[in-house]
């Protein structure tokens, strides 16, 4: 089978709000699709539809050829789900949580115990195995969440913002685990608010905004289209702002964004940086800030939609459930 996940024209309303407004997507077997977008874009709603938790108002979706509505029970046998809203029981220990899921999936008691032990070792949670999940750190908790979704060895994994709220180290550890899963043949649908996360993990990225897919392609395509990096220059003297703006605009081949005294532009070629330095030096411009950094989701958004991603930086962790009525 070529496509593990295939969806066409998904529409979902929550009261007045249109959470999904005709989402098409497909994920090839064995690859990683990154669904990128700010809070409220429709990422979680998409995952919930594909995980059989939510019935779409219109459109169709299938997993390994099984319809998510008509054949929901078969779809559930193929997927693992990890997200802020699909959680482990925090009053139970790590072992008990995995044991519970193993038993629910029909494993015998010894087999469930063995699988729990195996997963805890793989996810470096053996030492915390007999502690209640509520005592775990953020990173450990996500690892247990991920382990819980793997008990049944699902060929498909949905990861809904797996690293939101984690510190950089825990984030890197989780990325490594996800890479190992993909190397083992698992198909992954990943949602994230972070461009670098999608860039790191995904074979293909879809940018979603207001319930609609606004761009899709490989990370390279997308970067070429939007500029993967942001050049930022701040002249020491305000009088030099026009020169800086024109130099940056010319070399980046784009109209720079000027905020206060800071000039920024999306660039695709890192060689722009030395060129800018040379040109400004020739013009006798002294700069107080000069940087080339990876574009943020906001900047990608700006270049795709012409408007900033609303609330893209607001990490909505526990709030998601409460605002259940609105798209998350």
């Amino acid at each position: 089978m070529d496509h593990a996940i295939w969806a066409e024209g998904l529409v979902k309303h929550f009261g007045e709000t249109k959470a999904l407004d005709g989402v098409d997507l497909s994920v090839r077997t064995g690859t990683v699709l990154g669904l990128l977008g700010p809070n409220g874009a429709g990422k979680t709603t998409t995952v919930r539809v594909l995980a059989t938790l939510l019935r779409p108002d219109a459109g169709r979706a299938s997993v390994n050829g099984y319809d998510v509505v008509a054949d929901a029970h078969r779809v559930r046998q193929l997927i693992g789900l990890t997200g802020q809203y699909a959680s482990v029981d925090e009053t139970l220990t790590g072992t008990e949580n995995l044991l519970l899921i193993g038993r629910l999936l029909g494993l015998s008691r010894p087999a469930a115990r063995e699988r729990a032990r195996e997963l805890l070792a793989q996810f470096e949670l053996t030492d915390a195995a007999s502690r209640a999940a509520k005592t775990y750190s953020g990173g450990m908790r996500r690892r247990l969440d991920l382990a819980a979704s793997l008990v049944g060895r699902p060929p498909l994994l949905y990861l809904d913002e797996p690293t939101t709220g984690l510190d950089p180290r825990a984030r890197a550890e989780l990325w490594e685990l996800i890479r190992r899963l993909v190397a083992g043949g698992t198909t992954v649908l990943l949602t994230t608010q972070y461009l670098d996360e999608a860039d790191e993990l995904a074979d293909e990225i879809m940018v979603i905004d207001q319930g609609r897919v606004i761009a899709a392609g490989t990370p390279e395509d997308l970067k070429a289209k939007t500029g993967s990096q942001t050049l930022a220059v701040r002249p020491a003297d305000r009088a030099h702002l026009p020169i800086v703006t024109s130099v940056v605009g010319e070399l980046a081949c784009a109209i720079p964004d000027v905020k206060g005294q800071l000039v920024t532009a999306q660039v695709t070629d890192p060689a722009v940086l030395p060129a800018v330095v040379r040109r400004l030096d020739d013009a006798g411009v002294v700069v107080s800030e000069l940087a080339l950094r990876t574009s943020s989701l906001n900047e990608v958004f700006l270049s795709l939609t012409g408007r900033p991603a609303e609330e893209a930086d607001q990490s909505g962790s526990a709030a998601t459930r409460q605002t259940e009525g609105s798209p998350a």
Partner: protein
Amino acid sequence: MTAITTTPPAGPSLPARVSPLDGVRQSLTLAWRTIVQVRHNPWELGDFSFQPIMFVLLFTFVFGGAIAGDWQSYLQFMLPGMITMNMLFVTMYVAQGLNTDLTKGVFDRLRSLPIARWAPLAGRIAADQVKQAWSIVLVLGVGLVLGFRIGTNPASLLAAVLLLLVFALAFSWVSVLVGVLARDPERVQIFGFTALFPVTFVSNVFVPAESMPGWLQAFVNVNPVSILSDACRALMLGDKTAGSPWHVASAGPPVIQSLLWAAVIVAIFAPLSVWALKRKI
């Protein structure tokens, strides 16, 4: 980098639905989980163990003499009602647990698994029945130690316990609705107890209805808590209390009325709860 392997996509032989037998097994697994939770949270065990014991002691020794003349005879009257009242409070654990699962995301995790759709709810309610049995035996045991005496026979006593469990099962649907509608587990407690306290106290659990004003008696006499308490009195005490204002002449009418009430509660609250749950998720 070591690859974490998962098996290749399963063949075309995936079952299309859950067999009822598997559904029962899954419910029992989920009931096991609820019992394990109690082991990890002894506070909860204390809540549904010490609170009823405290109530028994308080009412027997503080109010008993004033209400019935002496605490020994008050204990006879009050204990069956106390067991009934406590049973209603214990059903609220269904609401508490369900609400926690819904707000913390455990319910969604369970729904994404290939298990029977009704298993999470059935598991909760089954576990609640274990808690019920425990607290009935506990309150009865404390009563027996203090001097409560069964006036009938073991079969009647067993019938009383079964009747309480059947009623608890029916009342669990009210609890499910509370659990679905409440915004967080704290609110379950507030909602549950502000509704349950008046309903259980405005009954004949603690004092006979005859001592109350007429308009109140009208409510007390149709209150299912009074009816079920009377059924338990009749089944536990028999003719031992003949001549007292609490005496229930025959077990038949209150038992039948209790079962009718249970049926009415299920007929109203089961569809309502399922509807509310489907709307919420």
